[in-house]
Every structure is written in C-alpha cells, then in structure tokens.
C-alpha cells in the first residue's frame, strides 16, 4: 500500500503559504511595508516528485454539479484546488465545462458547509460526534422494518450506486426514490417504448436541421456541455445546420435559433401531428410503421386547424415541414416544456414520431449500445418518484429515510403535502454538504465531503460516442476533518448490516481499488498490473468502455389524442436555467451573480411575460405582481420579454430558499411551490408545465428591486455594429458550403 501512502501524503500538507494569497495586492500603505518573520512557510513532509511549490498540477476527476457527469481537471497548487476545467480525455465534454462546473470550487470552499454531524434534540439540530451519529444510525436502522426504509437521492451512478443498492438489499428494502427536477423521464419512457432504449445517443452534429420543441439542450438539460459541443459541430459543418426552436418561453438554446417560434403552451402535440400530416399527406413520405389509430389521428390535423390551435402561422408550419423533408438527416427533439404537460407522454411520443417519419432513427439518433456494467449505470431521477415518495410518506408507510443529493422539501410542490408528510417519517437522515431545506428537516445530519474531496465513479447517462466510466478522486485534503465521503458513509452503513462481506474494506478507497482490480481485462487495455490500471484511470479520469454497436429499431407507439383545451388562462412555466439549475446552485455566489442568459437578471426571481399580455392587464415592466395558482401565490417582479408566448408566464427555478446558506436564503420565490399536483397518466411524472395561473398587479415598478445587467439602452444596439447578423447565403459564398 505504499502507493496509497505516497498518493495521500502530498495532500497531508497545506503547502507553501508564503506563495499563497494572503494579502491583497494593492492597499493602504501600511500593509506594503513588510516585516521579516511575520509569515509562516510550511514545508512539505515528503512530497511527490511532481509536487513543486509555486507550480500548479492538474488532476483529473469528475464533475457532479449536475447529473451529466463531465470529466474535469482541477488545478492544485500548494494543496489547494484553485480552478476547474474540462477534461479533454472525457469525450462527452471534450475539455469544456459549463458555468456550473466552473463554480464547483465555490461549493467546495463554501462558508456554509456543514462541518459536523448533527442530531435533532429538543427540536433543534445540535452537533454530535461521528461515533455517536453512527451509533444512532445503527440502532435506528437496526430496528426499522425493511420495506419501511427508503433511500431518497438524486440521479446516482457508479460504485456509490452499487453500494446504495447493496445497502437497500441488506436492509431488505426496494425503496429507492431518485428525484430530479430537471429530468427527461418522459422522453426516456417514450424512447424505451419507441426505440427500445431509454437513452439513445443523440447526434446533433450529424443533423442538418434540428427542430426542437422546447428542448433546451444547451441550457438546463441532461448534458449541456456535450450538446453544446455537438451544436458547435452542427453549426460549423460543411452545410451549416439549421436550428428551429418551437417553445413558449425562449430558452438559452432558443436564443441561438435561426427561427424561434412561439407556441401556445400545451399545444405542441397538435403541431407535431400537423407536421406529420403535412409530411405524410402533402409531401407524401411513407407512413410505414405508423399504427392505424395514429394515422387516423394525424389526418384530422390539417394546417389551418393546427395554426388556429397552436398560434403558429400556417405558412411557417408548412415551410418548416418542407425544410425538414428536404434536409435529411434532421433531428426533432422534445424538451421539458413538452414532457411536463398533463399529456406529456402523448405529446412527446407525437414529437418523437416525426423522427420516425423523417427516418432520423439510426442517423441522428443512434443506439448507445450495451453498457457492460449495468450495475454501474445511472439510476436517473424524475418527479414520479417524488410523487410516490410523498404518497408513501403521507400514508405513513416509511419509518426511516436517508436523503442524499436531492432537496425534496424545497422542490416538492405544496400540493403534494410533502412538508407535512415529512413528520410521518420517524427517522430522517440527511447525508448533506449544506444546510438545505431537507437537511434542516432531518433528524440526523451527516456532513459529506464535497466532490473535490471524495472518491467515486460516475457513469453518465448521456454518453458520448466513446462510452466511459468517469473516475472521481480527491483533488485536495479535506477542508474539514469532520466530513466523510459518501462512499465511506455507505460502506459504514453496509458494515453495520453485513460485517462479513464488507469488513475487508478499510474504507471506500480500498473498496474502489478492489472493484477496479476486479474489472475485466477488456477495459484495462494494456495495463500490465492493477496498479497501473488504477494509476492510468486516475491520470486520465476516464475508463473507456466498449459498449458494442447496435442498430436501433424504431416503432411508433399509439398515444392519446391531444385534449382540445380552449381555456384561455395563462400557463406557468417553471423554467430551469443553466446556472442555478433546479435550485441546487443557489448558494454559489458566482452563479447568483451571473446574469440569466436571456433576461439578464441577477440575484433574484422574476416572472417573464410578453409585453402585449402585460399591457392588457395594465402591467408594466418591473411592476410587482402576484402570480396565483389554485395552490397558492407568489409575489415578484415582472420582466417583459418578447421571447414569450402571450399565453405563458415563466418563473425561473432556483430561488426562494428558506435555508441553504447566506447566498441562497431569502432571495426570490420558488415557483415549484405553487404547482398543481397533476401527473402524466402514463409515466406518473409531475406535469410541471400545466399549472394555470392568474397574474395581478400589486405594486409599481421600482428600479431598485430587480437588478438586470446592461439594460440601459433598452436591449438595443442603437445602430452600432456590435453584433452583426448576416444571412447564411453570404457566408456560403465567402466561406464555401
């Protein structure tokens, strides 16, 4: 184990504080005068050869800021991780990293991290020792009945997921609730039914045209960096790709569209059927593989009707459909706004059917192959599990629950009654880094390492062409000795149940070493020894895995006809944003200070409306309004944006925290709270985009109350040549096609 000693010994020292940043650069004259002997220099005990004070060393690891699981490189100097970058060896993000990934260091160094185990005594959480915490855990979990025990997590994959499953087995339970607010659960269900694979590989880079029904693939999506990279290729292909975005609220991706079409929320299925109608009946594409009932349904949607229902002009529909038929291969995508409808499954199926008709399956939608380690694959979250969990808790079916990596108390709509139902759970454990809402409601809080301090593996659900297991390694010594890694906690829990099986592993590191050694030689490539394989895996951060090739077979499933809904109310779109995401990053100041990409608001919540809609209601820009649904209301400021359908209002997710540290607490509102508890009949997912709301003006505009970047000139270039837009024909002429 000498390798381990050495590997860790460099982390033991905090390094060369003299070269650190203690003083500010420029300051009052007094601090510039230096005195000898006032600063400490801490020498290394026994450094690795590559550790040189004053020189940064890059280590590979894996990002866990969202479920995408991009590979990262962390720059470490004097024992501190300073900067994260994408890992060029990770094919999915190809050396790039999004803003959330960049801000990972702020989660790690966050001043609001929980640094000690806590237990609820007399109504409040009080610090206790780890020994005591683990004792309580063993005692409580020892008495709980297996089927009344549950894990509640976000998306989880890799060896932690294996340990978690094993723990559930050991407890005799099957209750693993995986919850993600930003998810593609409905699409996964549709893909499973239509293609036989929940996560087929999307190839935006191979498409000549993309029609996206509200799919914010470069924004808050399943793998934003991967798709942004593909988008770059899509745009720079010999024939520049054409992006058409059809949605009710302009997303980050919509901002880059060649044509952005506003659609009445909830009518995307009608448009998809209308386009199918045009493709089959006018352009005469073969209708092979389409069930008869769907074919009949399609025939009822002619352009005039579709245009009336959706609010998208008929000629636009015809033109877009025409282009789709001309530019093969294309790609049609469905996003959260589509999936989150009351008829989410049917709508998504109708849209994905277009890929079938256009023959995109196998060209721009490929099989991801068979991942050889199914036990490591991601257990992807959705909102169905949240609904199920709330139901179980209400029915008092749960006695002990361990929470990790998800914040259901914050993200469950009030209508689910989860906050009250939490009281029915006798013993709630939160394995948590921050004092978020769920953690504050727990009975036992176990402080967990940040992902920059912890070991682990991640298997991204949306894999790039080369499948890989991403390895996560500590980039520095723990900031606080009192935190433990998730794997270590899981292992301890397992040891409590199955001492015989897991007693051999001193810690999670040992477990991982063992698991890596046990991997088949096929993934070890040319590694001569297990140590070499391990070292290579740590150095590159990825273990390439051959998943083989498979051909996708596309079948169109029958789906329900869209409900004709003439309700003229406003639909609330709780839109996630790249940055705060579903609210988990609200405690990272860089992301709070980074303006929303479209509205440019910082540090706040706001409601987006189309100016025409607002004008009808006598609402002006930045007025204070009350947005009410059947479930409650929130008060916030209006930002008028033309990138909205007139029948939609959007409140971005992420704010409205009642806990979660100094940067998140008390800012803005949480739109999730006022959502209806409607679910999609087929998948059970929450229909998050189907809540009807009313908007009432309650106060005048006040410039101080909402902060936006650079709106002085009314978002106009005022005749300057700042961003110049040129038609694609001109570029074809000068730069070739």
């Amino acid at each position, binding site marked *: 184990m000498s390798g381990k000693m050495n590997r860790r010994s460099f982390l033991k020292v905090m390094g060369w504080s003299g070269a650190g940043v203690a003083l500010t650069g*420029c300051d*009052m*004259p007094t601090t510039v005068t230096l005195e000898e002997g006032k600063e400490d220099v801490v020498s290394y005990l026994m450094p690795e050869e590559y550790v040189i004070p004053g020189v940064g060393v890059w280590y590979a690891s894996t990002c866990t800021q969202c479920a995408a699981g991009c590979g990262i490189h962390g720059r470490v100097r004097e024992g501190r991780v300073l900067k994260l970058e994408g890992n060029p060896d990770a094919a999915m993000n190809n050396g790039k990293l999004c803003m959330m990934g960049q801000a990972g260091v702020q989660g790690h160094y966050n001043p609001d991290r929980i640094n000690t185990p806590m237990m609820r005594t007399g109504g409040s959480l009080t610090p206790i020792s780890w020994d005591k915490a683990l004792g309580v855990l063993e005692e409580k979990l020892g008495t709980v009945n297996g089927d009344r025990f549950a894990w509640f997590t976000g998306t989880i994959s890799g060896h932690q997921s294996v340990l978690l499953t094993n723990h559930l087995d050991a407890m005799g339970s099957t209750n693993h609730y995986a919850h993600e607010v930003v998810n593609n659960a409905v699409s996964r269900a549709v893909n499973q039914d239509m293609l036989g694979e929940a996560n087929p590989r999307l190839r935006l880079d191979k498409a000549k045209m993309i029609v996206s029904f509200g799919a914010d693939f470069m924004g808050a999506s399943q793998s934003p960096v991967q798709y942004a990279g593909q988008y770059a290729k899509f745009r720079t292909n010999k024939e520049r790709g054409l992006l058409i975005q059809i949605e009710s609220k302009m997303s980050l991706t919509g901002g880059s569209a060649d044509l952005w079409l506003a659609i009445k929320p909830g009518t995307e299925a009608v448009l998809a059927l209308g386009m199918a109608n045009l493709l089959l009946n006018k352009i005469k594409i073969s209708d092979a593989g389409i069930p008869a009932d769907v074919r009949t349904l399609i025939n009822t949607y002619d352009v005039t009707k579709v245009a009336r229902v959706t609010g998208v002009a008929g000629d636009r529909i015809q033109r877009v459909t025409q282009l789709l038929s001309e530019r093969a291969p294309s790609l049609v995508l469905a996003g959260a706004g589509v999936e989150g409808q009351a008829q989410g499954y049917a709508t998504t199926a109708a849209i994905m059917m277009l890929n079938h008709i256009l023959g995109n399956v196998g060209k721009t939608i490929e099989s991801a192959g068979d991942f050889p380690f199914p036990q490591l694959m991601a257990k992807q979250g959705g909102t169905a599990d949240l609904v199920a969990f709330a139901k179980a808790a209400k029915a008092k079916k749960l006695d002990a629950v361990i929470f990790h990596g998800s914040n259901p108390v914050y993200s469950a709509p009030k209508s689910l009654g989860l906050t009250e139902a939490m009281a029915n759970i006798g013993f709630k454990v939160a394995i948590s880094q921050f004092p978020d809402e769920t953690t504050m409601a727990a009975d036992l809080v176990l402080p967990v390492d940040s992902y920059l301090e912890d070991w682990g593996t991640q298997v991204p659900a949306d894999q790039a062409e080369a499948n890989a297991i991403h390895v996560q390694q500590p980039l520095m010594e723990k900031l606080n000795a009192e935190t433990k890694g998730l794997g270590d906690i899981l292992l301890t829990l397992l040891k409590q149940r199955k001492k015989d099986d897991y007693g051999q592993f001193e810690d999670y590191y040992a477990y991982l070493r063992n698991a890596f050694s046990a991997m088949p030689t096929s993934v070890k490539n040319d590694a001569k020894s297990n140590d070499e394989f391990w070292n290579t895996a740590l150095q590159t951060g990825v273990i390439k895995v051959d998943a083989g090739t498979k051909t996708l077979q596309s079948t169109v499933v029958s789906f329900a006809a869209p409900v004709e809904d003439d309700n003229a109310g406003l639909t609330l779109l709780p839109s996630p944003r790249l940055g705060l995401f579903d609210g988990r990053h609200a405690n990272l100041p860089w992301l709070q200070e980074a303006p929303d990409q479209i509205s440019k608001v910082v540090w706040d919540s706001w409601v987006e409306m189309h100016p025409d809609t607002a004008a009808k209601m006598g609402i002006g820009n930045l007025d204070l309004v009350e947005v009410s649904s059947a479930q409650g209301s929130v008060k916030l400021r209006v930002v008028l944006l033309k990138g909205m359908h007139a029948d939609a209002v959007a409140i971005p997710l992420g704010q409205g925290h009642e806990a979660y540290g100094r940067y998140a607490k008390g800012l803005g509102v949480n739109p999730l709270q006022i959502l209806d508890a409607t679910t999609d009949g087929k998948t059970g997912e929450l229909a998050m985009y189907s809540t009807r709301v009313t908007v009432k003006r309650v106060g005048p505009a006040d410039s101080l109350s909402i902060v936006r970047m*650079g709106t*002085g*000139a009314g978002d*106009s*270039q*005022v*005749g*300057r040549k*700042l961003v110049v837009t040129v038609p694609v024909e001109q570029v074809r002429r000068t730069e070739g096609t």
Partner: protein
Amino acid sequence: MTMVTEKDINEQIAWAKINTDVLKSMENPRPAYWVTLAVCIAMVACAVLAEYIQYTVGMGTANLNNPHMWDMYIAAFVFWIGMSHSGTLLSAILHLIHADWRKPIYRFAEAMTTFSLLTAGIFPMIHLGRVWNLYWVLPYVSDRGIWPNFRSPLVWDAFAITTYLTASMLFLFVGMIPDLAICRDNTTGWRKKLYGILALGWVGSDRQWRHFRKIYLLMACFLIPLAVSVHSIVSADFAMSIMPGWHITSFPPYFVAGALYSGCAAIITLFILLRYFFRFEDYMTLPIMEKTAKLTFAIAMVWTYLNLIEFASVWYGHDVYNKELLIAKATGAYAWIFWTMLFCGSILPFALAFRKLRRHMPTMFVVSLFLNLGMFFERWMIVAPTLSMSQEPHQWDIMYGSIIEWAIVFGSFGWFGMLFLIFVKVFPSVSMYEVKEMVFHRKLSAGEEDLARMTDHAKPVTQTTGGGGA
C-alpha cells in the same frame, strides 16, 4: 442713449475715511456675517463626515459605477477652477487695460481666485481611489525610476493648477503689501505682529513704490496666459479623450468663457454680500455693480455663442455618437438639467441688460445665484451624460448622485465660503491704497487738484473701533 454719467465712487471721500472704513470692516461686521460663517462651517463638517465614510468604505458610496467613473466631483472641480478665473480677470486683465473701476472690488475677487483654487484642488483628492498615492502624479526622483505619464492631461492639470495657485496667491499677497502696512500701523498686539511680518517692512518709500509697481505689472502679465492655459488644460481632460461630447475642439475657449462667466457671476454674489456685511456702500457702489453686470452680460453672450458653435459643429459633424448624445441631452433623462442650464446661462443674463434690475441688489443677488447654478449644471452636463451614453450601449445608465456625493459637493461651497469669509475678516477686502489712488485719479481728471487736502492724512488712524452703532 443719453444717460447721466454716474460717478463710480465719490471722489470727495477722504483718504483717512477710506482707512477707517476698511479697517472697521475687519472688526465688526453685521451679524449676518457670523450666521453665514456658521452655516459654512456646518456644511464643511457634514462634508468631512461624508468624506470620512467615503474614504473608509470606498468610492462606491458616491454611487459611482461602471459608466459613471466620474461624476459630480469632477463637475465641481471644473466649476471651482472656473470660478477662480474672475479674480485674474478683474485684477490682471482690467489692470492692464486701465479699467480703474476694478479697484474697490479686485481684492476680494483675487481672494476668491485663491480660495476657489484651494477648493478645486481638494476634488481630485476626494475623487481619487487611492489618495495616499496622490504624489505619484508629480515627477520626483525615486529609486524606482518611474515617472508620471506626461501624456496624461491629469498630469498637466497637476502642473497647471499648482502653478496657477502659487501665482495667484503671490499676486494676492503682493497686491496687499501696502495695505498690510496700513493694518500694521493701525493694530496692536498679535495682529500687529502678524501684519508686520506680512508687510515685509513696507514704509511707502518711492523706491518701494517703484519696485512694487513693476512687480505688480509683471505678475499681472504673467498671470493672464496662465489663467487661460489652466482652464484650457482642464478642458483637455475632456477634449483629449475620444468620448462623444468630450472630444470637441472648441472646448478650450468654451471652458475659458464659462470660467470667466461663472467667476463674474460669483463676483456679483460676493459683491452684494460684502457690501452688506461690511457696510461698503461707499466703495462697492451701484455704478461698479453695473459695470460688473455689464461685463458679465457680455461674457454670457460669448458663452452662449460658443455653446451654439458647439451644438452646430456637432450637428453638422460626422460623429454620430456625438450627435446622438446631443439629442439625448436635450430630450433624454437629463433634459431638465440641460434646459435649466441653457435658461440660467443664456436667457437669465438678459436680466443684466436692464438698468433697473442691475441696480436692484436683491434681484442681482438671486440672478447671480441662478447664473452660477446654470454654470454648475453646465459642468455636470459635460461630465455625466457622456458617460451615461457613450459608444457602448450595453453600459448605458442614468446617474444621480448619492447623499455622500451631495454632502461633499455642498460642503465644498461651505469650505470656500469659510475660507473666504475668514479672509475678508482678517485682511482688508477693499484695497485701500488702490481706492485712494482711484479717488485721486478721478479727482485729477476732474480738475480738482487740491492735493493738499487729498494727502491730509498726517494723523494715523489709531482708533479703528467705533462708529456705525454696532
């Protein structure tokens, strides 16, 4: 137009009375003086508090921000520099062209020059991010071998202002020497000592007078180009940039005209105040006021003309940003300031064209205040709107100062007032020897050559108190 020529001063006034009156002013002014002084000191106290907050917390407390890196501090700086020009105008320019009506009022105008420069000089410090390094703008020999950037107009400013301040202080002092000797001769105790030192042994011998005249004339000649250059250099702070609304060729004359204008307006204000405080009705007479007002009116018209030139050259020029800014100034968020400035600067001075109004002190007082308000707005309109609407529209913004900024700018008026009021109390604010000279010359030209009576001041005035019932 036929008009009865009114005398600038009663030439029958006795030399001895001149001494008595002026020396009396240094003893017991009206209570209004003390009230004004107290108000001024209070304003300074507020400003000091505000500056303390700004210094410890940071420049951000003045609501300065990315587009508006400069705001009212620089406007006030330009304003006070401008104010300083009138003293030079009255004492040096009018001296050279032998306009002897200047004689009773040039002393306080010169004092105004010095103190407004002292006020102006504070602003670069107040507005500097790291004021403790201010001396870096001066070229001094250092181990580090680094020098200021001689291409920067701010460095020119540093040179110009320090030179002008030194020169105008010297001019003020030199011009006061004969009067200081009178003070020395008529006071006792520590004041006698003070004046004695300052009078530099003046006894009024021929030789002394001869040298005095020469040096005074030379300094006047030296000061005039200096004054013109100072404000031209201040205008270079703006004109040397490439910002719309700043990069304007006509800025130097425009600034100089504006400077003389605001200076004259301020002279009217202080004229009226001193006349009231010190009961100087015999010296600061209505005809002199009229002449000052006429001068002010003329300069106002020059300023108006230069304004029009600027507008026209922008309007017919090729700089789209400049033109856009001009339109925005007239119609945008700052329109009310723009039009107030034009009203105060160009329309209101027509009040000075009426004899009746010129002779009505309360009216003149109010008008002069508004003229100065207009000139302050003018400076602000030069500084801020350009920054609000420069080339880059993303950073456009509207600027209104913070309470800290306001307190400091108001405080600068208090600071100036305080220094000025203390000066006029401690030193003779009317030049005794020049007034005597004026009376003598007037008489001479009137043909009354009763020199014997004129020079009858054998008995020095030892008793400087009493009189006036105060």
